[in-house]
């Protein structure tokens, strides 16, 4: 429908209520964001208008209020993007592209105001690769177990177990890694410092595992039963059906699951900041996973305390890099899931 035709279908009463209530809501948000007028006054007017509407014309008013609630998600995401970029701009202006590709010293010097995110990006890449190497295969295998292999009593046990595994707070994982695994590496394996990228990657992998398991399991369960029955009717074994029919049909969903796992691994903060030593250098040599450097998330969590001015702005640039990366991964996995729904006919 064209815009004009769509506008013609608007009910005048709802439009009026939308104008008043919606306008006051927008003014409240604007007042809170800009601080020109005390937001509580405008908020009071908004509450009054909404109350009057709910009492007199409940149907249209509720539709308007619910629409505002739906817009709030977009609003929050928009505010996050705007404020992150605004706060990060000073350092971006100062360092330019060096922020992402500088490899020669000095890399991170708060006194000289030199900020390069390359060691952090490398640390994030290393820990995320190890994490996905753990969470990817094991997660897909777990999803295959839950949806294809397990008898129902086993499914009732292991599905909540995976959810509880996802529920353990990240700081508890970091605490265990710090108290148990770091000491193990130092005493048994002679690692010279407290903390390694390898252990951080392993712990983050265990944390990303439940995400991969649940999303991949949803993808496998969405494959129509007829496809599997047809394959079995031709005389193939259950495992042949799984590898040659079910997994290829659910491949887009499984890739979406792995992408979401990668996103979770990239954004993991507390485990990384506790286990790593947060030294803003490259590991020497570059592939030494037993060195303890820093990742994008652990940089922010370890240096926020005494940061101000340019230093704080540099932390915001790290936040921007994280946000953009995870957003790309999330949008990518959504596109893949949409493709999968079209291919299989989806859930009705």
């Amino acid at each position, binding site marked *: 429908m064209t815009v004009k035709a769509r506008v013609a279908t608007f009910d005048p009463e709802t439009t009026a209520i939308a104008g008043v209530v919606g306008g006051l809501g927008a003014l409240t948000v604007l007042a809170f*964001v800009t*601080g020109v007028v005390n937001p509580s006054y405008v908020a009071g007017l908004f509450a009054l208008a909404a109350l009057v509407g709910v009492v007199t014309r409940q*149907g249209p008013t*509720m539709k308007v209020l*619910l629409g*505002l*609630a739906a817009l709030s*998600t*977009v609003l*929050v*995401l928009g505010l*996050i993007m705007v404020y*992150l970029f605004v706060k990060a701009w000073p350092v971006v202006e100062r360092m330019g592209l060096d922020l992402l590709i500088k490899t020669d010293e000095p890399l991170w010097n708060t006194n000289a105001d030199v900020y390069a995110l390359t060691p952090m990006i490398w640390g994030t890449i290393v820990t995320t690769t190890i994490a996905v190497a753990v969470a990817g295969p*094991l997660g897909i295998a777990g999803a295959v177990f839950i949806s294809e*292999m397990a008898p129902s009593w*086993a499914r009732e046990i292991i599905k909540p*177990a995976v*959810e*509880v*595994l996802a*529920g*353990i*707070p*990240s*700081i*508890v994982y*970091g*605490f*265990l890694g*710090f*108290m148990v695994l770091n000491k*193990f*590496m130092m005493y*048994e*394996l*002679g*690692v010279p410092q407290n903390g390694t990228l390898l252990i951080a990657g392993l712990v983050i992998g265990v944390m990303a*595992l439940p995400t991969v398991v649940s999303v991949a399991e949803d993808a496998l369960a969405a494959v129509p039963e007829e496809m599997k029955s047809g394959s079995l009717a031709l005389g193939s*074994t*259950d*495992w*042949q059906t799984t*590898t040659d029919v079910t997994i290829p049909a659910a491949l887009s969903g499984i890739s979406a699951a792995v992408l979401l796992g990668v996103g*979770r691994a990239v*954004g*993991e*903060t*507390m485990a990384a900041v*506790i286990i790593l030593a947060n030294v803003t250098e490259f590991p020497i*040599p570059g592939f*030494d996973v*037993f*060195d303890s450097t820093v990742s994008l*998330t652990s940089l922010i969590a370890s240096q*926020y305390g005494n940061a101000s001015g340019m230093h704080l702005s540099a932390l*915001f640039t790290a*936040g921007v890099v994280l946000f953009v990366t995870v957003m790309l991964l*999330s*949008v990518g996995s*959504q596109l893949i899931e949409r493709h999968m729904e079209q291919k299989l006919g989806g859930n009705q």
Partner: protein
Amino acid sequence: MSTDTVTGTLVRSESTTIERFGMALTALAALTVALAILGLFVVIPVSTTVAGIAVSTLLGTGLLAVGLGVVAAGIGSWVGPLETDPSRHGSPTDGVLVGCVWLATVGLVAAHTLGTALWPLLAIVGGGLAAAGATFFREDVGVPVVGGGFVAFAGAVLATGTVGPGWQFAPSGFSVTLTGTVGAPLIAFGGGLLGAWTAARVAGGFGARGRQNGAYALIGTNAVGMLSLLLALVGFIVSKGIGPATQGIRYGIYWQPQLWFEVPILDEYVIIHGPELWFHWPFVMNGYTQLSEAINGVLPAIVGTVWLVIGTVVFAVPLGIGAAVFLTEYAEQGRFTSLIEIATNGLWSTPSIVFGLFGLAFLVPRLGNTPSLLAGQLVLAFMLLPVVVITTREALLAVPDEYRDASAALGVTKWETIKSVVLPAAMPGIITGVILGVGRIAGETAPILLVLGSQPFPRTAPDIFSLTGGFPFVELNLVQPASALPYQLYAVISGGVGDDTAFAWGTAFVLLLVVLSFYAIGIASRAYFRRKLNQ
């Protein structure tokens, strides 16, 4: 025509020799894997001796037996006596798997034992030969010989003590020194897994059924591994933390004055005594003091967490339910709904520290320019919002359309239908989703790290309610710094655990208790509602 002479038995009801042999080998391999894991985590170090023999030697002997058994089964199947159904060739996945294993082995041996600089070349040659052997020969010759051969080799290395207590390997470029205490269990673990895989294939009589057996053995091991990982994690924290957390609990029944009043005529007080239960749990009811005799507690953190959860739920749940209702009931599928879906998914996958940065940049300057409970509540509400929207959307979509149609047929308006028919039907799903979301929020540290910061070891809980002179008589002081359980744990760790490890374990235990009880309630309520609604 008589049917008993034409048909044989279609289903074998007893196990054949090769099945029993294969299952015995698989069990032995599984035992080896379990013992290797115990050895890796130094629960039973591989240097301990059992009847004079080191555990690593036992592991090696077991692996050797498995490997030789698998090779024997393969040869037996090829030559004739054993009943199997092998394929003409191995599959490419078999080749890749054993090829990678032999590539790593030959490379390590060449680099470490032989010390030659040609180790990459030798590794590739070894891996290639193994892959070719597994793929191009008959399945019951290629895979057992190459795969079982590796298991036997690993077993021999461990059994002869070549890799055992006292062995050391410091690869160049990596700042680590691999010792026998860790190296032996690792080799036993890898060899045991490969042995279980090949032995399961033997038990299945090779062919398609054998491959299924092998794959199921590995996938089942993975599932058991995940379950035991969860039990080990929770059990370890409980065992270490329950002692410090429950230290010094006192309770008793005392005879206390319960009721008193003045008799006006006699001008005397009449006091009625009664029993009263007194209960003191120091870890949960005290703050952190510097006194040496007092037991330090986390009461301020618990109060902070409670207020954070209350505030988050108050802000996020109505907004989230409203957004989901609009998306599902009112809006048509189009660009607007796609936009909101993208925004919700984006919010859901945003890293938690980015929310903290946003709170620091946007909320803290506008809410009194100080870290505050209110800022923490708002930031956590932004994190909970997408969870509520997604679960409410699923719950609303699960309500059958018949409910809505029946209500419309009775002449009820759209909003009335939603209010009195759809929402109550979807409530169980919404409640479950909110509880699980709150469980996740209660354990989040990164966002509150930046917006909630109070002094790391507070002595008293924050004063939320205060009396005001006029209307409304009670004021809510949310704009003040506070602590929360995850923040408290982080403060203990980053402040240097030192000799206060007991306090740290106790805090971790209390935090885990709080979060897991949310999850337990959520999962139990979902199971209850599912059974009640027969979904």
